[in-house]
């Protein structure tokens, strides 16, 4: 399932996939795959993404 919350948060911060990837130390492809729901990131990576986008885990990764 696509992670639209992550994409929305990234766009809200005015960051491209490349810029976010560089901030958290992964490749652009990995960010793309997380947004597409094709890769399950580790908790460590989820936390890095949350810190970079100033969001909580619930905001970005919790499905209602």
């Amino acid at each position: 399932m696509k992670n639209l919350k992550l994409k929305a948060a990234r766009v809200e911060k005015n960051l491209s996939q490349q810029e976010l990837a560089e901030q958290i130390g992964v490749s652009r492809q990995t960010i793309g795959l997380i947004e597409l729901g094709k890769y399950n990131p580790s908790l460590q990576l989820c936390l890095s993404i949350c810190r970079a986008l100033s969001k909580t885990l619930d905001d970005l990764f919790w499905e209602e």
Partner: protein
Amino acid sequence: MRWFQSKLKDERVEQAKNQIYRELFVVVMGLCFLSILVKQFMEIEAYSGMVPELTILFVTSLYYMIRGWQLDIFSAEREMHDRSSHIPMTAKNFICAGAGGVAISLYFGTRSAILYAEGTEQSIYYFFLVAAGSLMIYIPLLIGLAFLIDVFTKSRHAE
């Protein structure tokens, strides 16, 4: 083991590589088992010397290339490398290919001088003759191969 540790690591790439290594273990076991069967039950003249080792090297390399391309790890690795290194990965690959060509040529030159020459003068002549011939063959071959690999690994990234 510090040589094998890059500064930045993408966890997805590391996971994908570990998955490929797990699969490669099964591939190598299968090849070894097959090799034993061939040696036990068939007497193939051509299947001797270094053929089993070369088969394992070739098949595992090809398998790694194909699975790496499928899992899209090469372009990600290139991106991670280029982000932290002054020399781009493409340039490094071409330099390594050229150095590999020189190393192979020196090896063949030395081998010919030791095995086939009689006397110092002939050894030197054989060394330079074979090394020069090998240089003419292996440098373009390995650089061409590096170019093909570069195009192959870039193609999925472009998609």
